[in-house]
């Protein structure tokens, strides 16, 4: 009897979280699937059930849904492909640079590179719009001072992508750097000392000690950077408005437009489901690929 009462009071500790979890995660999850099976116009009170029609429209070549989804997916994929390698490599590079500095000044540089991460995307976007302004922006002023013509950073390809990627890397790289700094600090000193005795070069040490030791963190950073890049919205929405044309209109912009401008909540929900599915498949895929690589290496050794 006593243990039952005890279990009940313990359960009370979990109850508040469980309530929030149910209201704001479980119910929307189920509700979202439900919406995606209906012709759900935001202004109409009646939402007829249409089965998989929202999904089939997305896959019907030539339909408006198909165009929005494919264009958005293509552009999002481009952003992911451009930004993720930079976010990982520069993040690791900065972490190694900071670690190579004398201990006294490390904190300052770490803060300097990490600082932009604290700022919101709309501030970032406004700031970089101003930096990249074709007339009085700092970047073009600098380019002009070198005797070159101004570059239309936000209105032409490939510059629009370059601008979005630069702003994003500047904004978020600090977070990856911190994760890498922590990982580097846990690599065993003894391995480096042993390699020093063998006369290994720094490149050799990086390749054969550092990289294998931080591999799990590497997987984590690659996956989180990919997910974050997939969710890109604020930068293209505010900086390029999806342009030039529709070339930087990312998937999330398409979904939001479908839901709130065209008021087609049903097909927007179906697009969101597909987007989430793609994200899950990609991150599980990245995890498995890097894992199996690890196993192969172990078998070789």
């Amino acid at each position, binding site marked *: 009897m006593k*243990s039952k009462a*005890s*279990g009940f*009071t*313990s*359960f009370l*500790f*979990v109850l508040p*979280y*469980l309530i*929030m*979890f149910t*209201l*704001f995660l479980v*119910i*929307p*999850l189920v*509700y*979202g699937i*439900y*919406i995606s099976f209906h012709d759900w116009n935001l202004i109409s009170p009646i939402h007829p059930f249409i089965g998989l029609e929202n999904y089939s429209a997305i896959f019907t070549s030539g339909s408006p849904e198909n165009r929005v989804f494919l264009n958005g997916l293509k552009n999002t994929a481009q952003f992911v492909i451009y930004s993720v390698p930079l976010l990982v490599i520069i993040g690791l590079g900065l972490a190694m*640079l900071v670690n*190579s500095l*004398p201990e006294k*000044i490390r904190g300052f540089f770490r803060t*300097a*590179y990490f*600082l932009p991460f*604290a*700022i*919101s995307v*709309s*501030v970032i*976007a*406004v*700031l970089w719009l*101003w*930096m990249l302004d074709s007339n*009085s922006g*700092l970047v073009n*002023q600098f380019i002009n001072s070198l005797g070159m013509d101004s570059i239309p950073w936000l209105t032409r390809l490939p510059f629009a992508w370059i601008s979005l990627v630069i702003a994003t890397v500047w904004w978020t790289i600090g977070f990856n750097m*911190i*994760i890498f700094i*922590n*990982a580097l600090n846990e690599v065993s000193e003894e391995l480096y000392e042993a390699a020093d005795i063998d006369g290994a070069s720094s490149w050799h040490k990086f390749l054969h000690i550092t990289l294998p030791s931080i591999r799990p963190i590497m997987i*984590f950073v690659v996956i989180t950077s990919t997910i974050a890049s*997939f*969710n890109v*919205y*604020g930068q293209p929405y*505010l900086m390029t408005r999806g342009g030039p044309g529709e070339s930087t209109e990312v998937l*999330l912009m398409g979904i*939001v437009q479908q839901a*709130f401008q065209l008021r087609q909540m049903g097909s*927007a*929900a179906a697009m969101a489901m597909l*987007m*989430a599915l793609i*994200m899950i498949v990609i*991150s599980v895929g990245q995890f498995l690929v890097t894992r199996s690589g690890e196993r192969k290496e172990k078998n070789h050794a």
Partner: protein
Amino acid sequence: MRKTKILNIVFASILAILFLIPLVWMVSTSFKSDFEAIGGGTFFPQEFTIENYTSTLTSSSVPILRWLFNSLFVGFAGVTIVVVIDSMAAYALARLDVPFKKVLFPLFVSTLMIPWVITFLPLYQQFSNLGLLNTYAPLILPYSANAFGVFLLYQFFRSFPKELEEAARMDGANKWQIFMKVVIPSARPLIATLAIFTFMAIYNDFLWPLVTTNTPEMRTVTTGIAIMQQGSFVSSYGKLMALTTLATIPILIVFLIGQKWFIRGITQSGIK
């Protein structure tokens, strides 16, 4: 050896300047007249003016103080809810005899893998059905169902020494008293990390407050700036920069104070 060290410092310094220039330029532009800002040419204002700030702070179409209040209010409210419910749940699941806890913890943590885009539209529809759009409810409540905090604190509570709880129990303390007086104080650094993380996420969130609010009074700082940037401030970079500077000050203070915990917290969180 020495030479590479000096080269590294030089390189790091150049990078630091590049990283900080946009922010310095933001503040610098905010003190320029529109004429000077658009004319370009100089980095620092030739004629220093605070006109951008005074006109922004007094303009009735730019309720920046209201936006700051909204952002700070929803940030603190969200953090309070998250810290309270996450620490209670994490402690109970890690240390107490909760029924079904073997199911509940994996269930909570597995939701970390669900992309938020799935819940975004149905959540909007839920708040719309309840007539709660454009209120504080959607700006605060949905952030509370984030398993990150439960996961972070669970790891810590698992390795928390049992003796301390035992001693308190001997003194006649009940579960709640042990939790409040023994467990919570020991988890302070991690709770601070969770609080800062959550605060930054809520304060800086963009798309969700953008779609769930629609009047100037209900905007947060982040969404307010986006509206101004597309609206009446589109041609005045001086005023825009004054606005973004004002928006950045609170979060920068939180960030600089919390940085130590933040960094230590990421290390402890078991992201390995």
